[in-house]
Each structure stands twice: as C-alpha cells, then as structure tokens.
C-alpha cells in the first residue's frame, strides 16, 4: 500500500539559501509523524511545500501514490491536506461554527442566507465524531487556547482533510491541554487520518509520534521509530553534536539575602486577586524556581517584584531596602535584570534596530548617555558585544528586532539583561521558543551567574527546566505556593499534584518552605548531583 504522504527528493531553494536539500519523507496512513529540528532547520519550509504554499524547486509530492502539483493552499485543501498554523487563523469575535465554515458556508435562500442550522449541526457532528467537546456557539475569544486549536482542527476536517499538518502544536498549550491534544491525535488516527506535526521539543516527539524525522540544515538526518531512540540520540541528531541534556549544577552555599517577599498580594488587570499571599526569600548564588501552569499568578508575581505592578498588600525587600511601589527605573538602577515573558511586547521594540534595543533600560546611564546625549558608538559596541557573546543571528547590530527569529530575539534580550551586571535576575520563560542548542547555552549562562554569586528567580512552565536549574523549587497554584520542594528529590507526580493545587502532607517537604531550610537543601541537592 502506498504511504498517505510521500515527499520524494524535495529541494527548495530561495535566493542564496537552500532551505530543503533533497529531503525524502514518507508517512503511513493513520500514523503520527513528528518533524523534528532546530529553528531554521527547514521544517516549516518542507511543510509549506506539502501545503502548497511553496512550489518545490525539485522533487515531487505524492498523496496515496498519486503525484500532485499544488499551485496554492487551495489545491492542497482540495487534495485533503489541512494545515493548523502555530498562530491560529481564527476570527476572535466570531463563534466556533462561524469560524469552522468560514469560506465554505452552507447557504439557503438562493445564497442570500447562511444556513446556520446546517452549519451548526455539521460542526457539532464533527466535534462529536472525534470526541472534541466543543460548543459550536461559543465565541473564540471566550474559549481556551486548547479549544481554539481544536477549532482549527475542525476547520481542516470540515474541508475534508485526510492529512493534518500541525506547526508546533504544543507551543501555546498548558501541560494538561498537551495531554488532551495527544488524545485528539489518537482519536484522529484511529479514524484513518494522518498527522504530521512540527516540533523542536524532544519529549513531545517521543511521546506523541509513531515515527520521527529529524531535519538539520535542510537535510533529512534520519527517520526513526519513536520507540527505538532516546532523548539523547534525538538531541544529537538535531544539533549534530553531543548535547548535555541536564545542566550540571554544582553545590554552592547561598550567600546574602537578596530578595525577601512577605505576604505579597496583587490583583490582575481586571482587579481580581491573582497573587494571594506569597512569601519567600532568595539569597545570592541561588536559583529559586517557580513552576506552575501558566496563568496562576506568575505574571502578577513577577510584575510586582520588578516594579511593573503595585502590590495590594505585603512587602518586597531588595538588598535590605523596601522596593514595593518604586519605579521601574529605580529597579533597573539598583541592579535588577528582567527577562519578560512576552519578548515582543515587553522585551524589545520591534521596529528598533539591535543597537537601540541593546540600551533599553540603560539609556540614562553612562557610557550610553552623557549630558543628555546618547553615545551611539558606545551603544553600538554594546549591541555588537551582546550579539557576539550570545550568538545572535544575523550578527548585525543594524538589523531590526522584528527581522530576527523568536529564538534570536530571546538570546538578545537575555544577553542585554545579563550584561547589566545585575544582583538579581528575574527570568520568566527564558527559553520559550528557543531551540535546544541555544537553550543549553542560556542555561549555562544562568548557572554562571549563579556561580558568580548572583540571585536568580526563574519562572518557567517547562518542568525539566525549573527542576534542573533550581536550588529550591516553588510550585504556584491560583496565586499561592502549594509547596516549596527540593528539585533534586521531588518526583514529577508530586509536582503535578502541587500544580493541580493539592498540598503534600509530607512534613519534610513542607519543611523546605521554611527559610532556614534553604542552606540544608542546597546541600541536599548537591548530594543528589554527586549520586547522579
């Protein structure tokens, strides 16, 4: 039997670049196939060829053994290929059914009226058939991201897709939603659909896919069955060298108290309490991790600490001085670096070049500013040094931030913030959207800061990241710490329970929440490292 999708010797050249070089890809009907690779490896280009957005320079696409030539995505849709983009193509104020049928509306009254009942029914039927649990009349802006993704899938199914391509489907999902998505995959493949998804996350490819194809620099490095490989094998295939998957933390005595947060409460933008009485302290040379499902008060906690939001109650003491209510500039001047969660919204000015972006936050200070004038030469030197040290590509201080890929934007922000020579780094999702090679590099830099005696507050939704880097790990749920645990000994199940809002009864784990236990814990996790 012919494979559902067979891409034969696909080469795609852009002026000056070979994005795909003689790539073969075969996907069996009813299977889940992961396309794995670092940012810029050519995954998306390959899928755009399959989706009809690009015409291949060489090579042919076969569907069920039939050669195809797509001029536009429309042709691909007609041939049964559906694409679910990373950024959803949905109209927020419209309802689920309106979005699903958009462009293919069933009509009555000679085309003068959209047959709403028929559309609603069709969407409800599809939703039920694949076990999606989606309300056709809900508005897109009112449903969760996970549901929005299902609406995208429904859109493709409604148009008769047999092959579904998903571009980084888990990038925007919570861990629970990721599990649900894997369930959706199973349901779809059981009914004969074929799924190809693009990813740069190893764990995702291993747990969801039947087969994995790794692309590197536009070349197919190999296709393997997911049962036959380990994370380390895949990482090596992707990066082309051996990758240290677990950052090596060395035991270290925490020093002076840098940050002390006591009974902090803060509201979100709607005035609903988002942080409900959080206390912790952070010492020099220590990484304090905060894990939790996104939206449990992490943003408001970080905003309060970095001076972007006034807490409603509680105190924040930084280097012995009260900090709550101080301006953002005061925070920066006192040596608090901040890697924000949304790099395009808060980390960079997208239409500024890197020279300008590089001095954001330092624009008042020498050597960049003197007598009210900006010294562009010093600014440029600074940007170039960040670019070089943090391997930002393209290495051009004149490039505008919006011309950089997400991973490179992130590297530039991390570089800028770390080069402030801070006493405290507040890092929120520092490696979100960054490929493994760069992630490893950023992790190393974080640990170097720790070794230099800086304090690091690390907030991440990637469990392995916070667990691997932190000396102490707090789990946040609905604005409260459900526990502060030793990341070296805690199990994933325990963290999962804490993330879901349950508290562990174990006294020893609770004890870790006490400030005085910090020193002991650092010792404990050290032992752990030696054993491992």
């Amino acid at each position, binding site marked *: 039997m012919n494979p559902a999708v067979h891409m034969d010797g696909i080469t795609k050249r852009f002026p000056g670049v070979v994005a795909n070089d003689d790539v073969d890809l075969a996907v069996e009907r009813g299977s889940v196939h992961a396309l794995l690779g670092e940012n810029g490896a050519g995954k998306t280009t390959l899928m755009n060829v399959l989706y009809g*957005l690009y015409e291949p320079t060489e090579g042919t696409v076969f569907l069920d053994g039939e050669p195809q030539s797509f001029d536009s995505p429309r042709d691909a849709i007609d041939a049964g290929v559906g694409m679910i983009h990373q950024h959803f*193509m949905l109209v*927020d*104020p*419209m309802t689920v059914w309106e979005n699903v049928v*958009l462009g293919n509306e069933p*009509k009555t009254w000679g085309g*003068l009226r959209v047959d709403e009942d028929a559309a609603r029914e069709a969407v409800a039927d599809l939703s039920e058939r694949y076990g999606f649990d989606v309300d056709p009349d809900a508005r897109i802006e009112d449903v969760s991201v996970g549901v929005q993704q299902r609406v995208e899938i429904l859109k493709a199914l409604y*148009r008769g897709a047999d092959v579904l391509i998903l571009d980084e489907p888990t990038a925007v999902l919570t861990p629970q939603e990721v599990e649900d998505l894997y369930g959706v995959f199973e349901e779809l493949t059981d009914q004969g659909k074929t799924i190809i998804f693009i990813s740069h996350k190893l764990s995702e490819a291993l747990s969801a896919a039947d087969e994995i194809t790794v692309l590197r620099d536009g070349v197919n490095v190999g296709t393997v069955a997911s049962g036959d490989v380990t994370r380390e094998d895949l990482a090596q295939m992707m990066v082309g060298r051996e990758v240290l998957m677990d950052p090596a933390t060395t035991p270290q005595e925490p020093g002076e108290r840098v940050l002390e947060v006591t009974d902090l409460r803060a509201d979100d933008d709607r005035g609903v309490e988002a942080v409900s009485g959080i206390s912790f302290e952070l010492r020099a040379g220590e990484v304090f991790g905060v894990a939790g499902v996104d939206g449990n008060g992490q943003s408001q906690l970080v905003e309060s600490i970095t001076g972007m939001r006034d807490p409603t109650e509680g105190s924040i003491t930084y280097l012995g001085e009260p900090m709550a209510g101080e301006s953002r500039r005061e925070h920066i001047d006192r040596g608090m670096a901040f890697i924000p969660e949304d790099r395009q919204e808060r980390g960079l000015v997208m239409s500024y070049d890197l020279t300008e972006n590089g001095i954001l936050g330092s624009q008042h200070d020498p050597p960049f500013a003197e007598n009210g004038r900006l010294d562009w030469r010093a600014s440029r030197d600074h940007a170039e040094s960040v670019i070089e040290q943090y391997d930002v590509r393209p290495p051009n201080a004149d490039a505008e931030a919006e011309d950089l890929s997400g991973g490179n934007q992130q590297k530039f922000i991390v570089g800028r913030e770390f080069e402030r020579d801070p006493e405290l780094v507040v890092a929120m999702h520092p490696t979100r959207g960054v490929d493994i090679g760069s992630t490893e590099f950023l992790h190393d830099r974080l640990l170097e800061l720790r070794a230099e005696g800086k304090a690091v507050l690390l907030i991440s939704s990637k469990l392995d990241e916070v667990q691997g880097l932190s000396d102490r790990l707090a789990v946040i749920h609905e604005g409260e710490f459900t526990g502060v645990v030793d990341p070296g000994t805690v199990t994933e199940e325990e963290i999962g329970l804490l993330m879901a809002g349950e508290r562990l009864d174990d006294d020893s784990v609770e004890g870790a929440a006490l400030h005085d236990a910090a020193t002991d814990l650092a010792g404990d996790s050290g032992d752990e490292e030696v054993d491992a």
Partner: protein
Amino acid sequence: MRNPLADLTIPVLDDLIESDYVRSLIVGTVGVLGVLLVFGALFPETVVGDLSGIVFSTSTAASTSRLAAPIVLAGLGGIFAEKSGVINIGLEGLLIISAFVSVYVASVVGIGNTVLGVPAIWVGFLGGIAASTALAGVFGVVCIEFKADQIIAGLAVWLIALGLAPFMSTVFFGGVNTPNLGARIGWRYSATMVVVATVASWWALNRTAFGKHLRAAGENPKALDTVGISVSKVRHAGVLLSGVLSGIGGSALALSIGQFIGSGETMVQGKGFIAIVAYLFGNYNPVGTLGAGVLFAGLDATQIRLQQLGYAVPDTLVQTIPYVVVIVVLALVGRTRLPEAAGEHYETED
C-alpha cells in the same frame, strides 16, 4: 400551552437589537421623547412646551428625515468599509460629490425629460450614486492595492470633493450654488430609503456569507486568506458599498431640495463626519446607526427651528447643540470596539 407569539417576536427583536448597549440607546431616546411629550402637553407655555411643539411637528419630521438620510446612509456605508478593515473617513467627500453630480446630471437631462422611461430627477439620483461609487473605488484602489495610509487617503477624498464640486458648479452653472432644479424628491422617499437600507445592511452583515467574510477581513484577514478567499476583493466590495450607500445619501440630500449648495462647507456641512460618529455610536450595528443618525438629525432640525423662535440665546450657540451632543455621546460611549485589523494593510504570503 406556550404563547406562540413569545417565540416569534423575541428572537427577531433580540437579533436586531443585538446588544444591551443598543437597547439602552433606544430606550433612552424614546424615554427622553416621552418625557418631552408629557411635559410639553402639561406646560404648553414654557420652553419645554415650545420644544415639544417643535419635536412633534410634521415639518420637523420631514426635515429630520431629510437631514438623517445622508448621515444614516453614509454611516451604513462606513460600517461596510470599516468592518472589512478599511477606515473610510472620506464619507463626507462621497456625500459632497454625489450631491453635486446628482443635481448636475438631473439638470443635464432636463426636468421633464426621461431616459429609458426614468424621470430626470431619478437619473440624477443614479448619477450621484455612480459618482460616489467611482470615487470610493479610487479610494479603495489607493488604500488596498497601493497601501496608502487610509486616514490620509480618506482626507484626500474629502478635500478633492470639497474643492471639485463647487468648482464644477462654477464651471457649469456660473456659481458655487447650482440653480434650483424646480423639482425634488419628497421626504417620504428619503425615509423609505433609509429604512430599507438599514434593514438590508443588517441582513447583509449578519446573515449572509458575505457579511461573515467582511467581518473576517476586518478582524483577522489571514484567517480569511487561508480558507481561500481573497481579502482584497472583500475589502474592495466593502469600500464600494460605502460609495453606493453614501451616494444614495448625498443624492437624496441634494435632490430633496432640488439644488446643490457649494458655499462654505457645502450643503453637506460635516454630515459625513457625523455619520462616522453615528456608526461608532451605534457600535457598527445598522439599527444603532439609524437611531444615532435620526437623533442627530432630529437635534439639527430642532436647532434650526429653535433659532426661529428667537430666544435670547445667540444663534451660533444654538447651532452647536448637535455637536455638543456628539461630544457628550462619544465621551459617554467609549465602548465601541474597532475591528482588530482596521487600518492595517494586508499582504498575502504567496
């Protein structure tokens, strides 16, 4: 047994009125009018009595519908353009050009003559619509194909019409004001057109596939593009419709008195800009736009009559009433939500 009427009427009303906001607008207006009527009847000798006498007179109704036609129709047109993602602030210009061309065409044909059985005044009417649509088409090409700034292009449409119409009038008729045609369209025609256009617009926006596409083009054009529908076609359609509707409004305005007045701000006198306020006030709902347009036109008509009563208030101050109301209303509303991609250019990837 359930009352079948309850099932019949409520959904239709709910759909039509759509939001609490529009509902409160309608209730508020009716309420104010009711209070005015009651107090006017109780105290006929007071200011309230005068006001009530003005508001509830037939001549005010006629003049309201004459003044409301351009506001409501241009406002409806503005909804189509803006929902599709093109902010058309050139509505004023479209009203001016159609007002002049309608009178010009009617006078060229000659009152009393017909073309294919259509009386001259209606030929003029169609001519006005054609002129406005053509100008809107140019605006659309400039904004959509050449990606000009929509605000600047819209201002250009206004300024071109503001200069061109009186100029043409001078060329063809020897003065910025055209002579009176000696024939006109009755106010009942204007009122009918306004109501029909409002209902048809509502249907087109909320019940047809085109309405959904229009909305998608303005909210997330990429979503529309990826399902294989041309965003620029939909946007062109939206802009052309704004031309057609404004053309009806402008022609109705001029032909309802049978003359084009080109002095000063021309006879349109900012009605195109009030139209923008009207559809924002109506939150992009044609029914709300109708309400807002009638409210402003009513205030304007009342204001004109108030001047004639000769209170010890300067006329210039009385003239500002509709505009003061506009400002107050805008300050109070502040709740309308612009389409997400309005004002943004869209480029397909392939």
